[in-house]
């Protein structure tokens, strides 16, 4: 397995530059038949770019991929598929309203005369693939009706139906229970038995440790550790976090902060299990966890985007009803997502984007007073150090400047609690510290801040306290000197023992 020299796929010098930003910097990769290779790295480290180059979705700026010594045509998904490189996407299925057989065979359905579909042959072919994986899934069932884990298994069957030589997985266990995860991992090991190579992309370092024959680690677009034997969880954390040097932390108010403004008690929702958490004014509390862990879900529940079933959210002395963003904003909560499609109004001016949540302050019996609005917006833009014409479309600003404008929106509304969801995602390196300085300024002015981030360094740098999540429950808390990138990463990638026992 993975013996030297037996690699059938060799990639070397893969570089991808997006408009001046180097996403991948001469990365290399080798994989042998029946090898399970892990691919790890923080968000933005270049994992998905590498995967996209292999699957032909992205054409590399330079470098090439050799299949059995022959170059793979770059940027051509069909060629990659023909070479046997198939990816199982994070999304569940191709089509939930199509049958299992249709999902498995989509794109290479057996055709008869006049290009008509041979439904019987298609079902048989799908059944053969499922059988070879010893899966008992009825081919005529609608894929959307299957349990989540079976939907993923259907996707694996789909990959095999293409005569795959390498299957690429992207976080396959992100949203399933530990028991289901075990089934999936077993299926992945089954691929190894068949001599199929696996490239396993995951943030779950314990899974990588348990499953992979070798691991490639990416950081800032570079391969920092070539695939060479299995790695332990601790080794991986060290490689991922980089230099052990402490992140520069902003000086923080002496322990204490203000009074608790947000009291969450026994919150239960679709992805949350009995979460209780209290946040004080003047503190930045980090919520750390992998996709599907409940960290982000908690944030979305507090801002009302996602409803909860049981428990209470008390904010500033008021109870927040489930799934009511209007009530949350009125109570003084502001939501700043990294995904600007959830916050920006691209067809509108910066002014409109900034003042939207505070229009009541600039209006008189329903009419907006332009003058008062304009001067307030000018002041706010100054405060967040955003030099932009207030009348320009917000879409014409850089990502970082758009984030500043949205932050200004919540300063304008006088928000007492800020919910930050990966606030610096896609923000250029120069603007990132500016944005972080703004967040500190808000905290020091007495706001409470809840921060979810996929950027470990950011969590470590910004937070006064980090609460870790797994499987919808709180698994631990780091405070003060405990908050280092390494420890945060270790805590959030460790699967919760307690919760896996109960499930």
């Amino acid at each position, binding site marked *: 397995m993975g013996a030297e020299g037996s690699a059938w796929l060799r990639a070397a010098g893969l570089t991808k530059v*997006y*408009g*001046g*930003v180097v996403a991948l910097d001469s990365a290399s990769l080798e994989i042998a038949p029946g090898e399970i290779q892990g691919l790890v790295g923080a968000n933005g480290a270049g994992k998905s770019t590498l995967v996209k180059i292999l699957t032909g979705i992205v054409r590399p700026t330079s470098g090439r991929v050799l299949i059995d010594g022959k170059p793979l045509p770059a940027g051509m998904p069909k060629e990659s598929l023909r070479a046997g490189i198939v990816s199982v996407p994070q999304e569940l299925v191709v089509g939930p309203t199509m049958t299992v057989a249709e999902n498995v065979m989509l794109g290479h359905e057996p055709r008869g005369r006049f290009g008509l579909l041979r439904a019987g042959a298609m079902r048989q072919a799908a059944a053969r693939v499922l059988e070879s994986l010893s899966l008992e899934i009825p081919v005529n069932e609608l894929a959307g009706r299957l349990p989540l884990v079976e939907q993923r298994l259907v996707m694996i069957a789909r990959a095999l139906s293409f005569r795959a030589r390498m299957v690429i997985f992207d976080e396959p266990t992100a949203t399933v229970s530990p028991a289901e995860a075990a089934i999936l991992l077993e299926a992945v090991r089954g691929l190894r038995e068949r001599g199929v190579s696996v490239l396993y992309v995951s943030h779950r370092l314990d899974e990588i440790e348990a499953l992979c024959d070798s691991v490639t680690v990416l950081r800032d677009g570079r391969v920092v550790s070539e695939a060479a034997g299995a790695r332990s969880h601790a080794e991986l954390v060290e490689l991922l976090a980089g230099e052990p040097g402490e992140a520069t932390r902003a000086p923080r108010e002496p322990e204490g902060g203000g009074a608790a403004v947000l009291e969450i008690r026994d919150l239960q929702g679709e992805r949350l299990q009995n979460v209780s958490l209290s946040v004080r004014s003047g503190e930045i509390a980090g919520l750390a966890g992998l996709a599907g862990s409940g960290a982000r879900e908690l944030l979305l529940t507090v*801002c*009302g*985007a996602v409803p909860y079933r049981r428990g209470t959210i008390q904010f500033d002395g008021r109870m927040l009803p489930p799934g009511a*963003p*209007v009530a*949350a*904003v*009125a109570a003084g909560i502001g*939501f700043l*997502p990294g995904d600007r*499609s*959830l*916050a*920006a*109004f*691209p*067809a*509108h001016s910066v002014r*409109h984007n900034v003042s*939207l*949540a505070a*229009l*009541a302050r600039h*209006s008189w019996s*329903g*009419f*907006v007073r*332009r003058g008062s609005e304009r001067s307030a917006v000018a002041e706010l833009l100054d405060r967040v150090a955003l*030099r*932009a*014409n207030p*009348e*320009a*479309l917000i*879409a*014409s*600003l*850089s*990502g*970082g*400047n758009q984030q500043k404008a949205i932050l200004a*929106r919540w300063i304008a*509304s006088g928000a007492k609690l800020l919910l930050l969801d990966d606030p610096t995602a*896609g923000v*250029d390196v*120069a*603007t990132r510290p500016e944005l972080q300085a703004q967040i500190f300024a808000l905290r020091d002015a007495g706001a409470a801040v809840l921060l979810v981030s996929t950027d470990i360094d950011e969590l470590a740098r910004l937070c006064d306290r980090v609460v870790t999540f797994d499987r919808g429950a709180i698994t631990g808390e780091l405070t003060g000197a405990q908050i280092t990138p390494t420890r945060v990463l270790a805590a959030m990638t460790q699967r919760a023992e307690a919760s896996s026992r109960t499930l």
Partner: protein
Amino acid sequence: MTERRAATSSGTPRRGRLSARTIAERWSLVVAFVAAIAFFSAARPDTFLTLDNARAILDDTSVLCVLAVGVTAVLVIGEFDLSVGFVLGLAAAAGVAAMSFRGAPVWVGVLIALAAGGAAGLTNGVAVAFVRIPSFVATLAIGSIAAAIELAVTKTSIFENIPSSYVEIALTRVGTIPLRAIIAAGVVLLFLVILRATVFGRHASSVGDNPAAALLAGVPIARVKIAAFVLAGLTAGLAGVLVTSSAGSYYPNLGTGYLLPAYAAAFLGLSLGGGLRFNVLGSYLGVLLLGMVTTGLTMMNQPSWVAALVQGLVLIAAVAGIAVKRRGAIGR
């Protein structure tokens, strides 16, 4: 995305992106408007560029104008109201029926027409905002029901015993300007203020631009949507009054021809909002342009299908230009 960010992260104050091309696109409707005037004036110098003709066009387009402005309010929130033609008919029938069956005074007849339109709009709004039926389907269904009620009430007959003071509405002139044109202009002005200068208007265009972001920014989406549909219903009611007072009678299915041109005008007007936002002024100009083309071609003795053809081509040209531009804005 990345390229765009890299290109604009200079940090200097920017005046949007006002390239010569953007300016040309934004003012294309005005250019087309002026070009149409020039063309028809040259082709029919004695009849087209006259005060009489201007008056006639303003009067003829008043119904469409009122309706297009209401439709614009719904387009602004990112929805469609396909019921306006039917609602126009229902409101017209309700108002006329009250006057000719019950002997209601004219002002009551007008109020009843407006109330019928508003009620239909409210139904549309509730179906879309609370029941969450896609507006395309909901308004089509409710429009069909409105048409059914209209025909059931009127028993598919024509009423001509309308009070003469009602018919006067269409005949009155203020100075030399027809009252209907003034009403239309007044509605345009009113909607201009509502959509541009009020908190509701700001909320409405936010909902239309990005509903998810509007929700998370605390905009009361359901209320905003319902209000927009009620506004559209009210304009359909008013349009019904303008139609019947000018015709001097009620006749079945009198609203069916207005739906398409109202949307055509609103889409023509989109270019005035930079191809990004529906706007009242653009819709108004769109209506006037369509009216001018129809009148001008009639004066040139072209058969009526030519006007329909030209309107269709103009609309496709306008919307295709916008579609190309949007692709540019969204594609990375």
